[in-house]
């Protein structure tokens, strides 16, 4: 009995194959996801590294060079105050993606904590799931707008206009988007709790905290990763929608949504200025969504074998 076990345990050692390599192999076979990954990496790279190569200041006003078309000095032209569009797009992308990532982090953190506590501790389940239902019944976009309206002034007074608004928008998006993650995670945890290895861990006296960190969390990682990717996309869209409605970042602080909003007034004369940030938002969100799609397939063991 023990001998056969040893043999089967030794067999994989010859052909080392771990879970993440399988996931990566499956992910690579998803054409859309790979393309998405390349596009997203390119956008991320140009947003982070771009300002070092194209070192023009995004807020530098040059009234004599306003409303220019593409030229050597300004590859993507200038806006109504003569600010360089390329620099503004890169600066705006940095803020938009930073907001997306941070808000996603917050929402995933909240969703995971609430989902695991609801699934793991039966006493908390009812209360936390009622809370989730309540949040799902809230009209989110109106509430986001109201939150921005109410807390914009006090927060920008306390932390300065940039950090204040950044904090406000990240927190507002984070606390209004954790519900789906919480529900998915709770479902997974409920199923996991019935498995033998949890029983085994409990029978050797593992404390609940250790149990969650060591046994539950690694097993619910894949749905969390998928909703994290999709969360980035929706956070970027929400942020740009807020900016588009005039309730986002202040005007001299470019984000993609804000650039689009500023350019809409002169859409008939300078349509390029609307299209560029719009394409940037759409490409980012599209690529992130495709990555999420590929991740979902790659992390699903039922599909991975095929």
């Amino acid at each position, binding site marked *: 009995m023990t001998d056969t076990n040893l043999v089967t345990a030794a067999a994989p050692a010859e052909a080392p194959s771990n879970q993440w390599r399988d996931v990566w192999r499956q992910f690579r076979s998803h054409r*859309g996801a790979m393309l998405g990954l390349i596009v997203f990496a390119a956008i991320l790279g140009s947003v982070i590294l771009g300002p070092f190569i194209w070192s023009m200041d995004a807020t530098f006003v040059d009234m004599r060079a306003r409303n220019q078309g593409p030229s050597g000095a300004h590859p993507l032209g200038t806006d109504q105050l003569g600010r360089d569009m390329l620099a503004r797009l890169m600066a705006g992308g940095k803020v938009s993606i930073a907001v997306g990532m941070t808000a996603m982090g917050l929402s995933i953190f909240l969703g995971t904590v609430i989902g695991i506590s609801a699934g793991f501790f039966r006493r908390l389940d009812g209360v936390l799931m009622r809370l989730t*239902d*309540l949040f*799902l*019944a*809230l*009209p989110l*976009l*109106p*509430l986001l*707008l*109201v*939150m921005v*309206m*109410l807390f914009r*002034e*006090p927060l920008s007074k306390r932390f300065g206009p940039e950090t204040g608004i950044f904090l406000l928008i990240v927190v507002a998006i984070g606390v209004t988007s954790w519900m789906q993650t919480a529900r998915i995670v709770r479902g997974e945890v409920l199923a996991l709790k019935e498995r033998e290895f949890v029983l085994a861990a409990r029978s050797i006296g593992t404390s609940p905290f250790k149990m969650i960190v060591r046994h539950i969390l690694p097993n619910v990682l894949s749905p969390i990763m998928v909703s994290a990717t999709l969360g980035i*996309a929706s956070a970027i*869209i929400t942020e*740009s*929608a807020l900016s*588009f*409605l*005039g*309730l986002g970042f202040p005007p001299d602080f470019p984000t993609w949504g804000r650039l*689009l909003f500023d350019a*809409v007034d002169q*859409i*008939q004369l300078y*349509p390029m200025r*609307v*299209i560029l940030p*719009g394409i940037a*938002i*759409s490409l980012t*969100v*599209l690529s992130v*969504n*495709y990555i999420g*799609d590929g991740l979902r397939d790659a992390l699903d063991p039922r599909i991975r074998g095929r």
Partner: protein
Amino acid sequence: MLTYTFRRLLIAIPTLLFISLIIFLLLDLAPGDPLAQMPLTVPPEVKQKMREALGLGEPIHIRYALWLKQFFIVEPLHIFDAMFGTNIGGDAQRIISWQTRSPVADIIAQRIPQTLWVVGLAYVVGVAIALPIGIISAYKQYSWFDQIGTFISMIGFSVPTFFTGVVLIIIFAVNLQWFPSIYNTTHKVTDWDSFVFQLRQMAMPVAVLALYNASQISRFMRASMLDNLRQDYVRTARAKGLKERVVVLTHVLRNSMIPVVTVIALGVPTIFGGAIITEQVFKVNGLGQLLITAIHANDLPMVQTLTFIFAILIVLFNLVADILYGILDPRIRYD
């Protein structure tokens, strides 16, 4: 089923009360002062009286109770009066907008038709497009139709509506000049020409929202059809010698519609709330635009009422979706 419906309705009441409390408390923190724009010549005593008339001097729980009374008792009575010409409401204090000093309900009643026309039609069009697309792309999985459909629906929910709207404006209003870029709400349909104009000005906002809605619903339709096409009963139906049309359109489609119908029902509240951005792009003065202007003007009663109406719609249609699910699917019994 009836007891279940009844129980759900009873549960909805505390939910709504809780949501109303959240909205009320959130807005109560607002820094704006409705009397800030009063002329300085108004003496302070008068100002104080005006404040009390607006209900601002009272402690918070009394104002909350008053608002609830106005929202749930006074306003419905007034709406009833307006519909049947009675006078039950009398001259009870109504919820007054700080912007226009007229009752909030009247302004909302003026705005609802625009929202319903544009956004509601977009939802209907979206569903009408989504269902056939979902059915065909599931039936011919991985065909070129399915690939294109998947790609378009991916674009549909990745590209934000304010960008699709703006692109449509650039192409069709600025370059081709087929459609007007701004929705004219004062336009009245009297004859054929004005009807055509109405269609033309509705085309772009409806197209934008329909694409967005269709892309989501068609994915659900496709997934649900795929689930059912693999079931044993489909094989049985084919083995019995039924025509392919009957198998797909009667047996599979009926069963696949069950989850899709609930998704459609759940999406209805977004007609009112989620179209805020599209209304802003095309300058349709519907409910969403009303909310935005109220927020910019610090008009708290208006914001409170609108947000709460959106919340009521969400709770209501959640209930409708659950009940529909129970009616359509005999396997699901709540009792």
